[in-house]
């Protein structure tokens, strides 16, 4: 073989490996989704949404866990996202290139990918020990802490997309920065901010590790925020590791519910973002 042929052969071999890697990667991920859908659909019935989590060996549903997850996710996002939005506003509008902002951006990116189990331990230390018991409110605070970096990042990115001319126009009319932010910048970045919220909800609704030491679990219907509360991720964790087929079946159903919810939220966020970009109104 001459040099040219060797080079061609090497080119072909590596490109084939690249295609193979893509096929293998996508196949693994497809296998996961397929198992999830087939097992989840098998476990799905109207009882999943109407009955409480059962004791071992009995049949039941996931109603209290779905309710608990909804409550804690909602509370978490209500506490976390305003903080994240305000902080993002500071970074984008007030302290754009100050040293403090650089540090905050760096720390925020670290929080964004820090292991969530550590956040769980943190909330356990500062809330659960103080209160003396596990509670839904501690779970919500843990989720809020996880939601803050997500909303901060997206808010800053989206506010940066708002054309400077709009802010200048508002300032020229004599508006203070706060008025400009509230009446000009936020409305212009509205769809971007909504996208950030959806992504934050998607992120926290599947979190398991931080809820293990904060909200724990409850087998029954509970609406008390100061008591432990059932939630889908922890129920999935307990039921999947149990030896009872009924529980395992419910775990798969719960896993399917969570995944579908998160995928819908993520896809909705993408659609909003692409609509925003195609309308062209807020391109940089």
């Amino acid at each position: 073989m001459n040099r040219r042929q060797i080079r061609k052969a090497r080119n072909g071999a590596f490109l084939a490996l690249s295609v193979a890697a893509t096929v293998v990667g996508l196949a693994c991920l497809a296998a996961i989704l397929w198992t999830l859908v087939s097992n989840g659909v098998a476990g799905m019935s109207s009882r999943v949404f109407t009955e409480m989590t059962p004791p071992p060996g009995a049949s039941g549903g996931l109603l209290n866990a779905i309710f608990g997850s909804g409550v804690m996710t909602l509370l978490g996002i209500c506490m976390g996202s305003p903080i994240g939005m305000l902080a993002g506003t500071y970074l984008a509008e007030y302290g754009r290139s100050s040293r403090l902002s650089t540090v905050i951006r760096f720390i925020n990116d670290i929080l964004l990918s820090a292991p969530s189990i550590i956040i769980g331990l943190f909330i356990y230390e500062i809330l659960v020990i103080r209160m003396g018991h596990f509670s839904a409110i501690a779970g919500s605070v843990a989720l809020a802490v996880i939601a803050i970096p997500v909303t901060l990042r997206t808010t800053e990115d989206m506010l940066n997309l708002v054309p400077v001319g709009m802010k200048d126009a508002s300032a020229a009319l004599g508006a203070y920065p706060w008025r400009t932010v509230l009446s000009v910048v936020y409305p212009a970045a509205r769809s971007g901010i909504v996208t950030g919220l959806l992504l934050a909800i998607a992120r926290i609704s599947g979190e398991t590790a931080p809820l293990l030491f904060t909200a724990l679990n409850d087998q029954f219907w509970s609406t008390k925020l100061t008591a432990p509360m059932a939630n889908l991720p922890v129920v999935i964790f307990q039921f999947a590791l149990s030896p009872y087929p009924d529980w395992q079946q419910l775990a798969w159903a719960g896993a399917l519910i969570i995944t579908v919810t998160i995928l819908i939220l993520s896809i909705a966020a993408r659609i909003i973002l692409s609509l925003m970009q195609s309308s062209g109104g807020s391109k940089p």
Partner: protein
Amino acid sequence: MAIIDPRHAAKQLIYERVFRSATLTAAILVLVILGGVALSLLRGAWPALQHFGFAFVTREIWNPVTDEYGALAPIYGTVVTSVIAMLLAVPTGFGIALFLTELCPPMLKRSIGTAVELLAAVPSIIFGIWGLFVLAPVLQRHVQPWLIEHFGPLPLIGKLFQGPPFGIGILTAGVVLAIMVLPFIAATMRDVFDTVPPMLKESGYGLGATTWEVIWHVVVPHSRVGMLGGIMLGLGRALGETMAVTFVIGNAHRISSSLLAPGTTISSAIANEFTEAVGDLYTSSLIALGLLLFLITFGVIAIAQAMLRHLERRAAAPL
């Protein structure tokens, strides 16, 4: 001409100050949270650290009955599972990123890229139950016996592949982690490859280079820092990942020479034992594990961020 009402102007100024301080407070809260995490972990871990001293990180023993704890087995498990995950996920992620940027027809590029990104949003507990119910049995029946038969008798590395095929264990946890971090690594590398200026690539092609030669001699050197940043980000995720590992690791506090044996990791030990831990020293030892994990991941993620930032600055600067 409008007359400015001084009272109105004063009110505006107050609103401005209030709003500005609200945003500043929220921004500083981010720093407070990170400081709070570090301090509260340190405070919780203090009794264990004081009792065991530095030996905490060098001892393998983990015995709730005699109240003796050492972190070596979880540290070993965390490092080894993450290394296995990176060995599998980095080449595969590299291949996927190359396929998406250099080979893929534009029509597919968008849909495969979106699929990869959406999969990054799937919560880790899903990967965990899949690993337990689907992957572990497959590995136990088909892959592990093959490994034991072919690699077990070899000198040196043979030790890694001996013993019975449990299904769950260090190797399985590494494989699950690899599948979990794959979307992150592939998506980051794709974004990095996309920043290579087309002119550089076309110059390569103009000199008669093959696609692979352009990739290896132009794209990869240009993206080195960003690729490393992406890999470190994936590593940070693998080190701290809890649920996916907890399902398949087997939770055994010992260091086994075989990769097929059950083990434990820092995060899975905390997840498995924390709510059941009785006694202050037990709880404190688990929090000390959390502190170790915090320090390790903090370091890895900080390096990753520094690398990716360096890249952003370079991308922003004109060529």
